């Protein structure tokens, strides 16, 4: 097992690469859902504003 993690002495390079790959995808994924939430919240608050003004 430790041999697997050691990657023939290239552990740092291999695992950093793979780690960064997943980190980037994760950031993309999270920023997507955060953006969606905030857009929906904005539209809702706008609708409320319009209703109140009416």
């Amino acid at each position, binding site marked *: 097992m430790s041999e697997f993690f050691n990657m023939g002495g290239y552990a740092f390079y291999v695992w950093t690469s793979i780690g*960064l790959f997943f980190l980037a995808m994760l950031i993309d994924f999270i920023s997507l859902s955060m953006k969606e939430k905030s857009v929906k919240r904005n539209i809702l608050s706008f609708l409320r504003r319009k209703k109140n003004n009416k």
Partner: protein
Amino acid sequence: MTKSYRRNDGKLNMHKQRTNALLRFYHKLGSPPSFYRISGYFLKWLLLIAIGLTIWGMYDGLVLAPADYQQGDSFRIIYVHVPAAWMSMFIYGIMGVCGAIAIIWRMKMAEAVMLASAPIGAWFTFIALVTGSLWGKPMWGTWWEWDARMTSELILLFLYIGIMATYSAFSEDSRKAARMAALIAVVGVFNVVIIHYSVQWWSSIHQGSTVSLMGKQHITWDMLRPLLVMAFATKFYYGYSMLKRARIYLLETESHKRWVQDIITEKKS
């Protein structure tokens, strides 16, 4: 005066011919509400397939595939480096095409797809650069080399950043911002091609022979298979990320329209 009437007539005739089912589907996709609805069906599946393929590809590539006889285990970086590098170019191609459509025909969906592609494309470019760098250190003993392919990849990252910066600079008016960004994307496509060849031309006259980067080595099926799997996994994730961003863009730009308000209030209640 008569000219304009004739134009209208022409348009009417065109409408009558649009009976082809494929064309109808295309036009449906072109309208925001149906795009939103149709893409909603795909989203979950795209993400699930992407995750499944990634797990397969990673297991296959990191555990099952044999170590390279020259590079040892460091070659396994290939399974993130190459798919990311491929995606960085593939996505830029899509953005160029959609950008052209957005400028010429002012099609909203093309804008949405173009803008939604930029962040994920930039991420893939970034990954290709960093993983390439991480691969270069053990292989050539240096993090960075000013070789044709790497230089043009770096400039590709600048173009992505430029497109996103343009969009966010004009965020007050998103449609205008989108068309501005589209213009950069289109001009950039020509440029990537020119840069690629100019750098190649330049380095070939000055440096005898650069390190043979991606020389055609014989690669066994065991090594190739995970690569292909990862290539598909990244494509599916791109599909997911792009569609989801495009949907958010539509909600944002059409927020005054009935269909958006219906969707929002319906989800809440």
